[in-house]
């Protein structure tokens, strides 16, 4: 099932399907290993529109909510 990274539940694993955004966002996410086809696990999402924390390639990465909402994943 495809959904946005923000909709994923903490603890769920998923694969990145696509990243919607300009080249700047693509480049920044890619530099931290977030590319299409990459497996990730959502660790937590902070309340009231706070950032989403995911584990990708055994590293924790915090992603601002707005940016997380541009990442489509399949789980």
């Amino acid at each position, binding site marked *: 099932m495809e959904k946005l990274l923000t909709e994923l539940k903490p603890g769920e694993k998923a694969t990145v399907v696509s990243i919607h955004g300009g080249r*700047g966002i693509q*480049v*920044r*996410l*890619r*530099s*931290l*290993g977030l*590319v299409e086809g990459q497996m990730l696990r959502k*660790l*937590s*999402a*902070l*309340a*009231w*529109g*706070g*950032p989403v*924390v995911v584990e990708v*390639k*055994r*590293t*924790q*990465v*915090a*992603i*601002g*909510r*707005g*940016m997380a909402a541009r990442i489509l994943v399949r789980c």
Partner: protein
Amino acid sequence: MRDMGTEQRIRNAPQKPRKHLENDILLVGQPNVGKSVLFSHLTGVRTIASNYPGTTVSYAMGRMRGKGSTLVVVDAPGTYSLEPLDEAARVTVDLIDDAKRIINVVDSTHLERHLPMTLELIAQNKPMVVALNMSDEARHRGIRIDVEQLSAELGVPVLSIVAPSGEGVKQLVDTCLDLQPIDQSTRNESGHPGHHPHIQHPSPTGRNNSFAEHVHLNRDRIWKRVGELVEKVQTLEHHHHSFSERLEEISIHPFWGSLLALAVITVSFSLIRLIGEFLIAGAVGIIGEPWVELPFGTELLFDKVLHPPLIALSRAIGAESFLHKLLIGTLVDGRIDFMQSFGILSSGIFIPIGVVLPYLLSFYFVLALLEDSGYLPRLAVFLDNFMHRIGLHGYAIIPTLLGLGCNVPGIMATRILESRRQRFITATLISIAVPCAALQAMIIGLVGRRGIGPVLIVYGTLFVVWLLVSLVLRLTVRGFQPELLVEIPPYRLPTFRALGTKMWLRISGFIREALPIILGAIVAVNVLYQLNLFAYLSGVAEPVITRLWGMPSEAVVPLLVGILRKDVALGLLAPLDLTVKQLIIGSVLLAMFFPCIATFVVLFRELGLKDGLKSLGIMLLAVFLTGSVLNLILR
């Protein structure tokens, strides 16, 4: 290798016209891999290393002895790729161009994240060694890397090191120096001695810019190649969750993490105050009566040791002479009041050593603990939501916290933020509403004499100003507001070595740079008083200072001296016989009005002339309003 003729020149990020910097060895790697630690080891130059991405925002240069000659070593700021996304990364790309040899520092615990840049670097055709740092931590986490095979696959030497202990560093240097420089004129045609079949070389005409484009197109191939490499050389062993990993889970939990953030902030600020108070007065206690009182502290030291000889000197000179005023200052009830007398030998020594230094020690100790443990990026995550509402994102908390120590490194650290808009807002806020540790020490020392309430009003007002100015800036400053995107490092136990080095660098910086300015400011004040120049200034400033802000017109002197040093300026409020209300207003105004000269210079250097002037305009408006409002609402 260490303690050779060392030299440190921390340079600024080159602005538009770029400077060339010839260097023999360039340390390149992603943020937070330990480049600065390795650099210190190689050169003996001490640099500030911490546990969060973005510690080094400009580059450091040092020298080391090797192969019978002196070699220039440069520590580049961390960058995730050769496509520069921020100021720090742009600096690195330029440095690579001028480098003779590269040491690519890689985090062994996250090989797959670091190898893409290694491949990009290899394609640059510079003699290069890969240093697998944190190999002890990798072992601990059950990660095994076949170093020889990795080296064979990459076609460049690969070595395991542990930078903090120096393990493997000597071999690394030997290997690096054995590399043959590649003839620059033929580098595009001949290629690198090694083989890296999955990366195409740039076309013979290609320069580095077009190379970046080129790499961009080949991203998928790079990731694919990295996947294959990691598969071949790395094995993971299952291991049990360690305590620090449990703590990492708790730290990002929406509920427990918030509690932890709150606790960390509260404990940090209390600890700073407790240690500071203890060093000054030998007393420990948060509010009201102290729990412990010991015959210890700088106050006692000055009263017992420095007071008697100074009084003798005072008698010898005679209380009426100008020399007495300059050296000892004004006597209060026949005694020297180290806070109020304002001579070079009395307040001139007491303010920096007796009041400010203890707080700096305390502040930088606690800050170093936060920096080295790896907590700061986690704090940034929790504050992200709040910071978004004021036009910033969570990572802006790091420059702001540094600004609480000294505004200068705080403003420099705004370089870790991505957009010009964020840098402008954060730097402006720091210069207006973030009091440095020296000023805070004086606020606590002087305003604190009138009780904890007035101190809290001063801090509360500054916080409200910070909030209001940021809201106004958010609405008025146009530009792009990036989202938080940050790697959260694992928790690490701070080492005494790193802690000590960092504190020494910061404290010695204060003694070297601030002490002469403090003494100079005190001389200037005494001379100007003697020349009666202040009487004229008081008359000119009277309408604003007295009518609007309710301060005595002599307060113009501290406000002007604040341009040199904030701590001395606040000290000048002491002899004015102010009411509590005036003292509060005076402290707030001093914190906000004109950044001290060092901050001023850095502000303009970082923002440029136009934005620097804008920032000053906002400051003047904010000071004007805050002073007036406080005068209206306080009684």
